[in-house]
């Protein structure tokens, strides 16, 4: 029999409704699991067990009073870049090592209103800049399938926690693949919704025009349940889109027969890894057996996506991170000579190497005399990529492609080679550049037994279609049911 921490949120919610268990029991089970494996994996920056139990007790009262919502009482972990009033939110950075936000982010408010139990905040790359969760000031998170391997990033803590049973579901944020990549590397499901579908209010910004919060879970059903909570218009976020969002759970059992899936040749031309190739081939086979047809198509500007991303994201970051100056909150250098020196030393000592690299890249790209050649050109490429996808979706209902060019790699392997590290996101970045929803689901395993994810991309606000396609896939496969032995 499974322990409570191993169930999906959907199943636990049923058990809560039928009183087979309580939120406190579930929460304690997860907390015990954290006690057992956290030291090995380091999924969390902060765990608040007492508070979690209190929230669980409150959830049980709500459930007993018949006042429960679909996920009331389910334990979740949030990424350490989502403001939670009164709780340390560090972005895995020394510069915010002691920062306690005076307000709740919109997603945290929504979780609280749902009566979800917040366990704590999950580890990540510093300010979400990275693909491996190695740039965290608190040290790397390890892949539950092989602790020598990286879990992917930047939401590595969130994905590893779900894989290891240290949380039932989690929230991550995705700027260039930061939900989908770790979900794929940890063998779980993760979705980056359409830009504007989930409020960014209270999400500590990395690159504002690309950042998007999304769910990480064990299956499509849990993804849908979380989307039902977090998607919605927020007047506090000017980029949030006012529209009606469907009940995503309604798409779980819709047949996919007759759907058309696009296969952009630019994605597959680059594929060298035999394991990834095999997983992609298997995935096509499964969809074909479900009555899906395929169209070959081209996204001609895809090759420029990575380069344009590494102009736009660092440019925005250089401005977004300017506020961390040691004046108001967070880390301040101890010894300095005057105001300017305080700024310089606080930032020099407070930021890690990758963050500094991106701040410098962005500062340079925005400088007068370079703006047109870099930022403006990158913005134009972004428009071209968006148009490419728009055209593609005239021919298909969704796109299927790999999530990453390879299975998870070793801790330390790419830390000294930023270009190699950046290339990890080559399949995920274009989706952010176009603001599209994208979802990674387990597609199989490498010959070394490491998870490999497949990626589905749909047109703007077609999250429901991704839920439908991944749910259909998961009915036919058991990759998402496999658990690492820890």
């Amino acid at each position, binding site marked *: 029999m499974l322990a409570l921490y191993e169930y999906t949120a959907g199943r636990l919610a049923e058990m809560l409704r039928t009183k087979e268990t309580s939120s406190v029991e579930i929460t304690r089970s997860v907390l015990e699991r954290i006690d057992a494996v956290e030291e090995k994996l380091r999924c969390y920056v902060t765990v608040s067990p007492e508070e979690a139990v209190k929230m669980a007790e409150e959830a049980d009262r709500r459930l007993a009073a018949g006042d429960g919502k679909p996920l009331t009482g389910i334990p979740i972990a949030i990424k350490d870049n989502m403001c939670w009033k009164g709780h340390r*939110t560090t972005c895995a950075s020394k510069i915010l090592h002691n920062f306690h*936000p005076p*307000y709740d982010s919109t997603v945290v408010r929504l979780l609280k209103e749902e009566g979800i139990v917040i366990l704590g905040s999950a580890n990540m790359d510093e300010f979400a800049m990275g693909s491996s969760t190695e740039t965290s000031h608190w040290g790397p998170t390890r892949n539950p399938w092989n602790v020598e391997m990286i879990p992917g990033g930047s939401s590595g803590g969130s994905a590893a926690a779900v894989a290891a049973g240290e949380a039932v579901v989690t929230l991550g944020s995705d700027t260039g693949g930061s939900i989908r990549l770790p979900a794929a590397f940890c063998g779980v499901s993760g979705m980056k919704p359409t830009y504007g579908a989930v409020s960014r*209010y*209270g999400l*500590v910004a990395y690159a504002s025009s690309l950042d998007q919060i999304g769910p990480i879970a064990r299956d499509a059903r849990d993804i849908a349940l979380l989307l039902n909570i977090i998607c919605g218009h927020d007047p506090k976020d*000017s980029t949030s889109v006012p529209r009606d969002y469907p009940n995503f759970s309604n798409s779980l059992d819709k047949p996919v027969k007759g759907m058309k899936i696009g296969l952009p040749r630019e994605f597959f031309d680059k594929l060298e890894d035999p394991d990834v190739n095999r997983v992609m081939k298997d995935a096509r086979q499964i969809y074909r057996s479900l009555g899906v047809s395929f169209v070959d198509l081209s996204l001609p500007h895809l090759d420029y996506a990575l380069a344009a991303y590494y102009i736009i994201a660092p440019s925005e970051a250089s401005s977004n991170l300017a*506020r961390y100056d040691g004046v108001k909150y967070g880390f301040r250098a101890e010894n300095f000579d005057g105001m300017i020196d305080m700024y310089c030393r606080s930032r020099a000592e407070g930021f890690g190497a990758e963050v500094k690299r991106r701040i410098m890249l962005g500062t340079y790209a925005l*400088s*007068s005399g370079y703006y047109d050649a870099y930022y403006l050109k990158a913005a134009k490429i972004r428009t071209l990529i968006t148009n490419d996808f728009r055209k593609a979706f005239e021919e298909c209902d969704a796109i299927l492609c790999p999530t990453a060019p390879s299975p998870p790699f070793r801790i330390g392997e790419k830390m000294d080679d930023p270009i190699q590290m950046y290339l990890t996101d080559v399949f995920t970045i274009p989706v952010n550049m176009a603001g599209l929803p994208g979802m990674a689901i387990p597609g199989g395993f490498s010959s070394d037994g490491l998870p490999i994810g497949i990626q589905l991309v749909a047109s703007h606000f077609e999250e429901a279609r991704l839920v439908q396609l991944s749910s259909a896939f998961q009915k036919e496969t058991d990759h998402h049911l496999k658990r690492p032995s820890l």
Partner: protein
Amino acid sequence: MDYEAVIGLEIHAQLLTDSKAFCSCTTRFGAEPNSNTCPICLGMPGVLPVLNRKALEFTVKMALACNCRINEFNRFARKNYYYPDLPKNYQISQYELPISENGFVEIETSQGKRRIGLTRIHMEEDAGKLIHDETKPVSYVDLNRTGVPLIEIVSEPDIRSPEEAGAFLRELRAVLVYLGICDGNMEEGSFRCDANVSVRPKGEQALGIKTELKNMNSFRFVERGLQFEIDRQIELLKAGERIVQETRLFDSATGTTASMRSKEYAHDYRYFPDPDLLPIRVEPALVERLRSELPELPTEKKLRFVNEFGIPAYDAGVLTASRELALYFEETVKLFPKPKMVSNWIMTELMRRLKGEEHGIDSCPISAEQLAALLRLVDEGSISGKIAKTVFDEMFDTGKDSSAIIEEKGLVQISDQGELVEIARKVLEDNPSEVEKYLEGKTKLMGFFVGQVMKVTQGKANPAMVNQILMEELKKR
């Protein structure tokens, strides 16, 4: 060689919205330091700005009043620089695609009328305030003002003299105040002005090297600062020296300008579109609504006052300098349709008292109705002009009606022909030697006789009648 000045002005005006530009904090002035703040204007991690539509509407109104083209699609940009009074270390402003461009303002100086071009009017957020401890090397930050909406008005380098600069500023201020979108207070900094100044030989087209002038917090200081700077630059050129492009601070104590260390302020602001705020659309329907809501502006009103009321342009200028004063004038004229007389009384007596008591016209103790009633009494000859001034002061001090004051103090004018003839005869009889001298040709003594009559009547005699009667009585002698 003759030189001419080339001046462009950059004006910042605080908008009178209830809440800040991108959060819901109040803009009220004078609260405890850092009390009118929230995570958004404090620049906390994770917060996002949401545009105050009222501030956008105010900006569009000003742009329309200044004949600007409205950019239907405009957007906000980040101006990046580090300073402790700027919590995000960038200011939300506009760069490419401001709310409006290409306008103009008409000014009138001793040299006649001129049109001053406007490059742009855009919206941005204000920074906080640093308070420096004089005794310790410590500074305090007050972020109450952070995020208060500002409009920046940038003129073309069309201004040629400090006088024109003053006229331009006064005109802009009057328009802002008319629109009710800025209180126009230069001393408190809700209306601020920086200037770019250069000089060139008259007739030359190319621009000289400019300096930027800051810290001029009154109209007078702007004019003085510009004059000093123009003279300084001309002297340098005449001595064969070069102008250094730099920022200079005006010192109101000495009336001079001095260089700010230029290096510290050489910024590359790295402007780029603010990704937290989508492009703003100003719908044509909104523009039309705001246009239809525009009040009559100072220039139009001034012109109308000259044409409709026949008062001199100067008077019309003074009366229309504030919307409330113009309204007061018009209301008085409606009740007492002698505009010149009304204008004279407002510009002399009323302005004197208002200035002395530091009252604004909106808190004037004499209503337009009360002033009209007083002037009617003067016009009818019920009281003399001199007594009317006494009555006016009493009205201003007590708020009472003129009729009540006149009755209380028995100030009604004596206009009774018989009574006045009797008094006049008595005066002439009592001063025989003066009468003799008058009859010998010293007609200046008429004033003396009038004075004597007034003395006897305690000033209540109708002066026009007194003159007439005395003349007739003297003729009889």
